[in-house]
């Protein structure tokens, strides 16, 4: 059975009458790269702020590495980057060494290893002169300082160029694979999360709408078939009478056959035989973005 490293139960954060988080119950299991997906203002950062002790939840429970009380001590086992926060006058090595002391990490080459990992080794200039990409890289190194078993990353690829995005993805995957580090990553660049995450949580208006594994997600987003005809109502009746297809959806003269129902030859034959003019029969894979939008009712 997978070990749960971070768990929230009914986590709620109210600002007056506005619920930034509404009874969020989330499980982060050992070895996960958990993609937390939500629109701007959906509650991702508030969730992280509550978990990291930066905001006091109105209600609910947080358990980190099996500890519900003494969360401050448990948080020492969590590395995080919500926004890269470093002293502007220190260089990257000095900034990491500062945090080594604060976290009680015996360096032993740890800062050099991390700086190499994120491509900042040998950089002597102070943090204030860094580009956004360099700041994000140092933020990632800071989050992984001391080899914490859990790393929280809020929008780690914001503002990065394609190479920077690929580099950060590679670092996350490498640390996950080689050290078993568990990540919880939020981003609204869903195509990127799709490449890296092993589990997904969809958050909307402060509520966790769904948690799903990568395998289950891909099962659900597997190919569907778009059928464009001259008479959608008749075509749907034909298809349902022949194959059932309770998940088939009709939008005017377009029918979408979900759940990888995919015998195009048989469908074309059945429709034409029943006198329905077939204009287009196209397989289509739902992207993570479309799945998310569909889930939250955006489309």
């Amino acid at each position: 059975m997978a070990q749960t490293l971070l768990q929230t139960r009914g986590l709620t954060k109210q600002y007056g009458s506005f619920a930034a988080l509404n009874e969020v119950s989330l499980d982060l299991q050992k070895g996960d790269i958990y993609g937390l997906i939500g629109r701007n203002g959906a509650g991702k950062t508030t969730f992280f702020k509550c978990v990291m002790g930066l905001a006091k939840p109105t209600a609910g429970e947080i358990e980190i590495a099996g500890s519900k009380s003494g969360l401050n001590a448990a948080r020492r086992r969590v590395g995080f980057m919500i926004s890269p926060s470093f002293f502007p006058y220190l260089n990257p090595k000095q900034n990491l060494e500062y945090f080594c002391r604060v976290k009680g990490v015996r360096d032993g080459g740890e800062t050099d290893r991390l700086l190499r990992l994120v491509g900042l080794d040998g950089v002597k200039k102070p943090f204030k002169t860094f580009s956004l990409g360099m700041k994000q890289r140092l933020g990632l190194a800071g989050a992984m300082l001391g080899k914490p078993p859990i790393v929280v990353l809020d929008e780690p690829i914001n503002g990065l160029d394609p190479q920077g995005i690929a580099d950060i993805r590679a670092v996350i995957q490498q640390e996950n694979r080689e050290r078993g580090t568990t990540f919880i990553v939020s981003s609204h660049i869903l195509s990127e999360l799709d490449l890296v995450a092993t589990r997904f949580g969809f958050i909307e208006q402060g509520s966790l709408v769904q948690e799903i594994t990568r395998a289950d997600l891909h099962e659900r987003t597997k190919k569907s078939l778009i059928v464009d005809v001259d008479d959608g109502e008749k075509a749907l009746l034909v298809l349902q009478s022949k194959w059932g297809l309770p998940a088939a959806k009709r939008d005017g003269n377009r029918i979408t056959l979900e759940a990888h129902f995919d015998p195009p030859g048989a469908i074309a034959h059945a429709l034409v035989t029943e006198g329905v003019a077939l204009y287009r029969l196209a397989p289509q894979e739902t992207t993570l973005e479309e799945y998310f939008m569909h889930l939250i009712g955006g489309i």
Partner: protein
Amino acid sequence: MLRYLRGEIYRLLRKKSFYIYFGAFALGYVILAFIRMGSSGERQMLKDAESLFMFLPPVVGSYLFAAIYTDDLHAKNLPALIGFGVGRIRIVLSKLLLMSLFGTVLLALVPLFMYAVHTVFGASPTGAVFGEVYAWGLKALMETVAFASLSAVAVYGLQRATFGIAVYLLLSLGVVSQLLSALFRWEAVHELLPGLAEHLMAGISLRMLMGLMGNGAVVLPAVEYAVYVTVAAALAALAFHKKELEF
């Protein structure tokens, strides 16, 4: 808390402007002593100490206060510390300790530096003069730490560096003290609570200085001072505890 203190000392000692700032002051003092060459002596050293330590809380103290307290706000470092499990009360107490530590080191070094400069330029101050210089230094140190602990309430409550520094400057330049003294001299207040002005920080530190020079009690102003700093630290911790941290 020790880990955090170690980190902070590491950071402060690697801040280049720290050395530039104090180096410039030291150089300025040496140049001044050079210009006045020949007039160096015990009396001059005492006069210097009085002037120097009068400026220490607003000029040097404000730099120390900004470096210790408000750099965290500029760097958005407080959320990172709390996220790493450093408690808010520990942060407040550590900052107070750091301010006291750096202030004390400064207090220890400034009279030695003055002694060295005056010796180079021909004076040989006695132990009694040296003691008096340290007493003035202690007064300045007490004020610096107390003003910092009071300003910390603004730093942690408002999370704005500018407000924190502004409050520190208003306190250390005596603006708040002048306003309160004027209020306490107001007849209605004076009749109700006579001698209230003596219990402002300037009054407490002056009584402490007098006490150290053998002209009064030391214990009472020391207790008053401890209450001042403790209450201010408690208020800062309370303000910080209630504050949600933004990035």
